[in-house]
């Protein structure tokens, strides 16, 4: 399961692709949260960050925890500064119109594993 699969199955639009293979990196788990501290604590390497908070700090947080990408739910408008930060940090950015809960269900159904043990 990688970001390209997520994009096709939800569906989601791909705003920033990141590096060449950014969309192809395997997703190691999913963290759905709008709180930076929660993300910092619970996110594992290579997780997909699902959030309804369209802020630059979410991109930074994702970068700091080594997430594979950020998926913004509810079709939230993305400020240009957020998109350009994602680009400069090579952080893949996707957006879906689905609400957060439905997004998580769809991700699970599509085969996205929950986070590894202990999360």
């Amino acid at each position, binding site marked *: 399961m990688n970001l390209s699969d997520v994009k096709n199955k939800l569906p989601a639009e791909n705003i920033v692709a990141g590096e060449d293979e950014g969309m192809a990196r395997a997703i190691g788990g999913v963290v759905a949260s709008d*709180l*930076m501290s929660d993300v*910092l*604590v619970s996110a594992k390497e290579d997780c997909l960050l699902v959030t309804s*908070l369209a802020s630059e*700090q979410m991109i*930074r947080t994702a970068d*700091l925890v080594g997430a594979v990408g950020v998926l913004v739910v509810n079709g939230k408008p993305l400020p240009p500064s957020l998109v350009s930060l994602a680009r400069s940090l090579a952080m893949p950015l996707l957006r879906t119109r689905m609400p957060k809960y439905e997004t998580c269900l769809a991700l699970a159904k599509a085969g996205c594993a929950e986070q590894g043990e202990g999360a």
Partner: protein
Amino acid sequence: MNRGLPDLSVERSPLSLVEMIYSTPIREVMTGDPIAVRRSETMRAAQELMREKSISGLPVAEDGRLYGIVSIHDLILTIQSDQLDQPVERHMTDHVVTLEEAMPLSMAIAYFGKYPFGRFPVLDARQRLAGILTVRDINVTLIDRLMRDVTRYESMLESEPLPGLAFTRVFHARRHDFEQGGKASTALKRHLSDHRVRRELIKRVAIAAYELEMNQVVHSIGGTLSFDVSPERVGILAQDRGPGIADMDLAMTEGYTTADDWIKSLGFGAGLGLPNVKRVADEFYLHSELGIGTTVKAVIRLDTGKENGA
């Protein structure tokens, strides 16, 4: 007109500015293709032109040859003596101080200091009118070039490569500057990744640095974040100028926060900041005084630290 122009003497100016004013020819700064009147035109025509184009000094020229300049002062005298219908030739200033386009900008700045004029006509190598130079032209050019220089220097600072893992850097945090907030932690993380530090360790460092950095942005009136990296350890020192923590025990309690709804709407203020830092750090020190400020020190060992927590 020249009042307020800074002292651009070589001794007191930064090198890049000195280089700029000595190496830039007036040609690159002046307004080229100047509007001019002919000698036989009336002062009324000159006045119309000056009003219409919002210019305060109008060259009098024919086929490129400069004969004089009509200034606001000339115009006032003509209006007072009711001679607006007379030709320009009779009222213009004819002893005109000029500059040449190949001269360096430093020469022009010296001229503005020496003469009480707001503008100088600029001649080309064949002594033909090539442009007009005003203080505004100089200001606009200098500001534009300084902006470019500063931007270049800033990007050099950001991407300054370091040969080894050892690294020291101080970042400044400003209250509620969510745009810049996080940049310091990102830079630290990048440095550690570039030097192949283990991912679990990087993550612990990133958590501590980011929580401390955002604490300063969210809660303090401003402060500094210092990183000190050696092969053995990463030291993070966060010092702010206040307001200080009222109750240290509460501050260390998970879930306790003093953040308002706005901060929470940005995804901060979960009351996990300091506890998170303490959890990932091998050494943790917190000191705070109301009205003075807060100092937090966190150390993550790269050699023999705790392996859990992240």
